[in-house]
């Protein structure tokens, strides 16, 4: 909206004739009053904090989180923060052990399988109650699973868990029976929050229910008592939890949008635990008094995939991947050009492990390493020799050409919001140049990257998964079944399809009787994946965390030893944490510093005003003379 600057005025707004008010005294008096009021406010507040602190025995564990909660409804929640909170509120049927990651009883104390592997019977533990005092029976898991099978909105977040279920019934109060369509080996890793039937049967629309009737009725070691959106979630201990009451009375998750601010809050003691630190942040906290840094083995792998020629399930080819990449020799040569140790050192500052198989080292049941001649270790000379032999000729500009005459210029898509991928991408450009491949580095918005992936308009692309103790899902995304039915609808992330791999996948999924045999199949699958060099895992980054050892005396990592505290498969780090003797909590009301801080701010403001007034009066006095 255009507005005129006033031209040189011809008259002032307020007529000059109007008698002026006395300038000095009255205004000064006003300012003085304001100052006095501010000081009184600050002084009066001095008495308040004692009342706000609550009982001396109430101990609070404050955890810094980097994501706001999406929803507290466990049927809808997608974000790690929300599912982690739900793990502390709703026990599953079977949990993952804190030390070994192996299945361990939760709501179910034991289980049995029929001869054909199609019927699973779970015995529900006796004497457990919901936090409102109602008993926990087999009706509750039956209700939960049936809701997910019947109501597509209730299946939004965890529907994959019940995809193979035929029928779920509560035979009696302590017996739950699940009938399957096909045998499946993952019946002890159904990581689904079980909700109380007597509360949720009243819910009309699972898709709209927010689950914010506090306190939320749950079965876990904590129950949600408050949620300030985008700020904090407060949980109170459940004294009747069947494993025993947790050590802390209160668990608060506090949201930070900025990682550096989060680290400062830990340094100051406002939060007890901060996770997801960068190597630099972890280094800066190392050795500080009252802070313990936990360098944990990671659940995540970092990988790049090579477009092997995208096709649909019907074999229709689409996209515009570089044709030469359909040659396994070229894909393996690319792998051999990469120095994983260099990535570990230069990208992660040593806080990572060079990767071997698809499943991270922390899961030793399924961990696999290539041996002998199968290894595709860093060896640019051998890679060059392989390419020479396969007919990839080097041109005058140092870039090779495929036997079919296509110049080896590859597009590489990198997530611009992941600093580690960005750094690795830069190293890749140099390493691939060493074997005569020119890389067009496209460091882009994740949305652009995702479009390129689903349209198969890429050559190399970065990816990574957080692997659960049961790796079924991350293995399943590379079966032929995960190829898109029509372009753009893929379930997987690599357009990988291999008959041998698929057969092994079916076998491991059906192998519910013998866990060792199943692990063997899973290792063989990784061997196939490694040799085909379409999905290439380069590192397992560590999880860097730090906590206040003057607030948390002890806690539980998963797996033990070497595991992490945040993002566990379970609630162990929260429920088993013990408060430090005589430590100062992160929580609590406005402290003495609140008063001091506000007073300091008031002094600055009032002082500035007084200074101005004094100077003005001095100036006016000069005028008078």
């Amino acid at each position, binding site marked *: *909206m*255009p*507005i*005129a*600057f*006033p*031209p*040189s*005025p*011809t008259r*002032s*707004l307020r007529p*000059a004739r109007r008698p002026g008010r006395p*300038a000095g005294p009255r205004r000064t008096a006003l300012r003085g009053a304001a100052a006095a009021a501010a000081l009184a406010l600050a002084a009066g*507040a001095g008495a*308040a904090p004692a*009342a706000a602190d609550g009982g001396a025995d109430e101990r609070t564990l404050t955890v810094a989180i980097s994501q706001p909660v999406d*929803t507290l409804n466990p049927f809808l929640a*997608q974000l*790690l923060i929300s599912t982690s909170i739900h793990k502390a509120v709703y026990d599953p049927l079977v949990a993952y052990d804190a030390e070994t990651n192996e299945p361990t009883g939760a709501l179910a104390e034991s289980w049995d399988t029929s001869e054909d592997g199609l019927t699973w019977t779970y015995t529900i533990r006796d004497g457990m109650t919901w936090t409102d005092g109602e008993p926990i029976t087999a009706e509750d898991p039956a209700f939960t699973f049936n809701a997910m099978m019947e109501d*597509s909105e209730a*299946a*939004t977040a965890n*529907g*994959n868990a019940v995809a193979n279920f035929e029928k779920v019934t509560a035979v009696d109060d302590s017996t739950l029976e699940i009938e399957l369509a096909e045998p499946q080996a993952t019946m002890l890793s159904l990581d689904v929050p079980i909700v109380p039937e007597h509360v949720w049967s009243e819910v009309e629309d699972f*898709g*709209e229910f*927010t689950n914010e009737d506090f306190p939320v009725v749950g079965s876990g070691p904590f129950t949600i008592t*408050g949620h*300030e959106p*985008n700020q*904090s979630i407060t949980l109170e201990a459940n004294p009747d939890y069947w494993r025993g009451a947790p050590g802390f009375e209160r668990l*608060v998750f506090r949201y*930070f*949008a900025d990682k550096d*601010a989060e680290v*400062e*809050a830990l340094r*100051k003691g406002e939060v007890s635990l901060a996770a997801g630190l960068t190597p630099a942040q972890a280094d800066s906290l190392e050795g500080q008094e009252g802070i313990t840094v936990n360098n944990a083995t990671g659940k995540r792998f970092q990988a790049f995939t090579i477009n092997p020629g995208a096709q649909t399930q019907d074999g229709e080819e689409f996209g515009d991947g570089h044709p030469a990449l359909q040659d396994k020799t070229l894909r393996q040569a690319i792998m051999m050009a990469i120095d994983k140790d260099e990535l570990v050192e230069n990208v992660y500052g040593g806080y990572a492990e060079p990767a071997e198989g698809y499943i991270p080292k922390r899961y030793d049941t399924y961990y696999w390493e290539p041996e002998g001649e199968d290894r595709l270790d860093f060896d640019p000379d051998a890679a060059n020799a392989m390419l020479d032999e396969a007919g990839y000729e080097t041109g005058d500009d140092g870039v090779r050409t495929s036997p079919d005459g296509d110049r080896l210029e590859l597009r590489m898509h990198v997530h611009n919001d992941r600093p580690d991928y960005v750094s690795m991408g830069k190293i890749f450009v140099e390493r691939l140049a060493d074997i005569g491949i020119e890389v067009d580095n496209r460091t882009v*918005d*994740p*949305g652009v990257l*995702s*479009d390129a992936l*689903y349209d198969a308009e890429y050559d190399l692309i970065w990816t990574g*998964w957080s692997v*659960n103790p049961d790796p079924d899902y991350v293995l399943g995304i590379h079966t032929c079944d995960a190829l898109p*039915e029509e372009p753009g*609808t893929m*379930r997987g992330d690599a357009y990988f399809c291999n008959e041998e791999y698929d057969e092994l996948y079916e076998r491991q999924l059906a192998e519910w009787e013998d866990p060792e045999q199943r692990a063997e199949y899973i290792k063989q699958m990784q061997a196939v994946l490694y040799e085909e060099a379409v999905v290439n895992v380069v590192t397992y980054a560590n999880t860097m965390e730090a906590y206040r050892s003057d607030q948390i005396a002890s806690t539980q990592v998963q797996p033990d030893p070497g595991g992490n505290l945040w993002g566990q498969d379970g609630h162990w780090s929260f429920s088993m944490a013990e408060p430090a003797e005589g430590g100062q909590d992160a929580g*609590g*009301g*406005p402290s003495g*510093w*609140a008063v001091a*801080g506000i007073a*300091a*701010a008031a002094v600055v403001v009032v002082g500035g005003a007084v200074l101005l007034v004094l100077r003005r009066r001095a*100036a*006016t006095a000069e005028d008078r003379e």
Partner: protein
Amino acid sequence: MKKGSALTRSATSGAAPPEQGAPGPGAAPEGPGPTGPSRAVRVLRYLGGRLFTAAVSLAAVLVTSFFLFRILPGDPVRAMTEGREVTVEQMEELRRQFGLDRPLWQQFADYCLGVLRFDFGTSYQYRVPVAELIAERIGPTVLLAGTGTVVAALIGLVLGTRAAWRRGSAGDRITTAVALTLWSVPSFWLGLLLIVVLASGVGWLPGLFPTSGMATPGVEGAFDSALDVAHHMVLPVATMVAVVYAQYLLIMRSSVLDEMGADYLTTARAKGLRDALVLRRHAVPNALLPTVTLIFLNLGRVLGGVILIETVFAWPGLGSLFYSGLRVPDLPLVQALFVLFASAVIVMNLLADLVYPLLDPRVRT
């Protein structure tokens, strides 16, 4: 003086509103008084014109908002389920819930009908009506940005006036230099610096303020809560004020400088008024006009304008909401916020247009 004036003019041209076409500064001299009935007509025409322009802008914003965010690359469902163990059926179910499986024209029609009822749909991520989310977050943003704008304007006006009145003095040079330096500082960096020094504490200095957030969980009672929020507000407001007060200072300084040579000031001095009175009664009221416009324009931007500060201090306002919505993209949420931010600017501009004639009689003609 002229040199200084020119300098500040160019420095602030970005913030200054463009010249209005009519009535120009050199318009024909006004008659001795209002010219009867035609005056009411003129006022109505002025009002009608402004309202019409605002309505057209608003309609354009509504339409743009729908298409703008659909041009963004990426797919909300894929982004939301990234890293989750989902089946193809689950993704289709999400698409159905969000209405993304319907043809674009139908989505657009739904959007338009919804807007007419002030219904912007349900947020993909948070699963609650967008209007509820905005209602929750608008308070903190208005509190933070409103306080910041008022404080920055006051400081800027006072310092700007003083700097102009003593132009060329050491005080003027220092004030202006400090303001310009702070203006060029990135707000998130300054915020972090304040957190490190004043919240964490450095050396002997204890941490005086909370590192971030708006309230300490578990604080109850009206007085305690107010105190707690005030305590949390100090650093973000200080950051905001430090970064933005320069524009008020510079506008005010240049406006006062423009008045300095005016005859009416000489007259006032000739009447024997004290210097301070000449400044306060005569120069400042005239110089305030462009600054008032600037304040109105900035009030319009208050809603969306402090996103970086909200992020650093984890302030639960609209800025951080917008940021979290853009990453998905959470279409209903970002559409509604875009409309809200844009209409705030439009409405404030309209208000400025309407208030201006009251402040400046010359525009009324």
